[in-house]
C-alpha cells in the first residue's frame, strides 16, 4: 500500500513542476516576441546613422575626431551582456566561453570589463586577471535607451582620457527562434565605411560645422550598436529560456508517464494479491 501512496505523491509533485516550467515557457515566449520587435524597430535608426556617417566620411576626414583615432591596444574594454537569472540553457555559458577564448587569444594587454547582468558580474569577479570597471543588472523587462546611457558615457569618457584603447561588446545575436550566436563587435575606435563622394553634398550646408555633426552622428551610431546588442541578447535569452523550459516540460511529461505506469502496475498487483488472499481464505473455510 505504502508504495502506491509514495508514487502518487511523486506524480503530484512532478505535475506541479511541469505546470511551473510550462508557465515559464509561455512567459519567455511572450517576452521574446517583445524584445524581438524592439530589436527590429532599431534597425532603421542604425541604417540611417551608418548612412549619414559614411556619406560624411566621403567628404571629410573623420579621423580628426578622437573617437576614430586608432591607438596601440594596451587596455581593452569588454562589455559582456548576460542574464540576471539562470534556467536559460547555455546562454550565459556561451558568452563566457567566447570571453575566455578572447582573453587567451590576446593575453598581452590588460582587460577591463563592464558586466551587464548579474551572471556576468559573478563570473568576472571570480577572474583575478580581469579588472571589473562596472557592473549593471540586466535591464528590466521594459528596457529603454536611457538605461544604457550611463554605460556608454563611461566607455566614452575612459576612451577620451586614454585609459582604454579599444572597446568591444560580446553579445548573443538572435538569428531565429532556434539559433542564437555569440558575436563580438568593436565599438571603439569607431569605424565607418567610406562611401564614394556624394556630389550633392559638396555644396551642402553644415550647421554649425562639419566636425560637430560627425561627433553627433558617431555618438548616435555607438549608442544604437549597444542598444541593439542589448535587445538581441534579451531576445536570445528569452528564446533559450523558452527552449530550456520546453525541454523541462517534455521531460516532466515523460517522468509522469513512467510513474503513472509504475503506479498502475503497483495498484494492480495490490488488487491481485488481495483477490488471491480472499480466494485462498474462502477455500480454507469451505474445506473445514
Amino acid at each position, binding site marked *: 500500500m505504502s508504495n502506491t501512496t509514495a508514487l502518487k505523491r511523486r506524480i503530484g509533485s512532478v505535475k506541479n513542476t511541469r505546470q511551473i516550467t510550462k508557465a515559464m515557457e509561455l512567459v519567455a515566449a511572450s517576452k521574446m516576441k517583445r524584445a524581438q520587435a524592439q530589436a527590429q524597430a532599431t534597425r532603421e535608426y542604425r541604417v540611417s546613422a551608418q548612412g549619414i556617417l559614411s556619406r560624411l566620411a566621403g567628404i571629410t576626414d573623420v579621423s580628426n575626431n578622437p573617437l576614430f583615432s586608432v591607438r596601440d591596444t594596451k587596455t581593452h574594454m569588454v562589455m559582456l551582456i548576460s542574464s540576471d537569472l539562470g534556467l536559460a540553457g547555455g546562454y550565459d555559458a556561451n558568452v563566457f566561453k567566447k570571453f575566455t577564448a578572447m582573453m587567451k587569444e590576446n593575453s598581452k594587454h590588460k582587460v577591463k570589463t563592464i558586466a551587464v547582468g548579474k551572471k556576468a558580474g559573478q563570473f568576472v569577479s571570480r577572474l583575478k586577471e580581469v579588472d571589473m570597471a562596472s557592473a549593471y543588472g540586466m535591464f528590466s523587462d521594459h528596457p529603454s535607451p536611457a538605461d544604457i546611457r550611463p554605460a556608454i558615457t563611461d566607455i566614452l569618457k575612459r576612451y577620451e582620457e586614454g585609459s582604454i584603447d579599444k572597446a568591444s561588446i560580446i553579445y548573443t545575436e538572435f538569428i531565429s527562434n532556434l539559433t542564437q550566436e555569440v558575436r563580438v563587435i568593436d565599438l571603439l575606435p569607431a569605424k565607418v565605411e567610406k562611401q564614394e563622394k556624394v556630389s550633392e553634398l559638396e*555644396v551642402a550646408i553644415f550647421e554649425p560645422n562639419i566636425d560637430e555633426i560627425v561627433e553627433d*552622428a558617431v555618438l548616435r551610431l555607438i549608442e544604437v550598436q549597444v542598444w541593439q546588442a542589448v535587445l538581441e541578447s534579451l531576445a536570445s535569452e528569452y528564446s533559450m529560456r523558452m527552449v530550456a523550459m520546453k525541454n523541462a516540460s517534455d521531460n516532466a511529461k515523460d517522468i509522469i508517464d513512467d510513474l503513472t505506469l509504475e503506479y498502475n502496475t503497483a495498484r494492480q498487483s495490490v488488487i491481485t494479491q488481495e483477490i488471491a488472499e480472499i480466494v485462498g481464505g474462502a477455500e480454507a473455510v469451505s474445506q473445514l
Partner: protein
Amino acid sequence: MIRLKLIALSGVHFDEDVYEAMIPTKAGEIAVYEGHTPLLSVAAPGLVAIRKSKSIKDADRQFVAIYGGTVEVLNNVIQVLVDEVDTEQSVSVAEAENSYKRAQELKNKAKDSVSLAEAQAMIDRSSVRLRLAGIKKHSRRKY
C-alpha cells in the same frame, strides 16, 4: 512636397510627405521645403512644426517635441535621428508642469557645475514638453 522621417531608437515615429518642416537646430530654427539644398546639422531640443499641406494655418500645424538629434536633408528627404519623440497625444499638461517645476528645483539645489548642467538639460527638455502641452491646451482641434 518633401519627405520627413523622424527616426528614434524605439522606431520610426514619422514618415510622411510634408509641405514644410520647421526644425530647431543648434544654429537656429530652419524651415525646410521641397527642393532644399543638401544640409547636415545638429538638432537642438525644441518643437518640430509640420505643415502637411500649403493651406494649413500656423496654429493648425502638427507639433512634435525632439530633444536633440542629427538632421540630414538630401535628395528631397529630411532624416532626423532623435533620442526620443513626444507628440501632442503623448504629453499631459499637468505632468509637463510638474517635471518643469522639479527641474527648476534641482537647478536651485545644484552645487557643482555637473549637476547644474544636468539640471539645465532637464529644464530644457521639460520646457519643450511644456510648450508642446501648451499648444495642445490652446488648440481647437479635437483628439
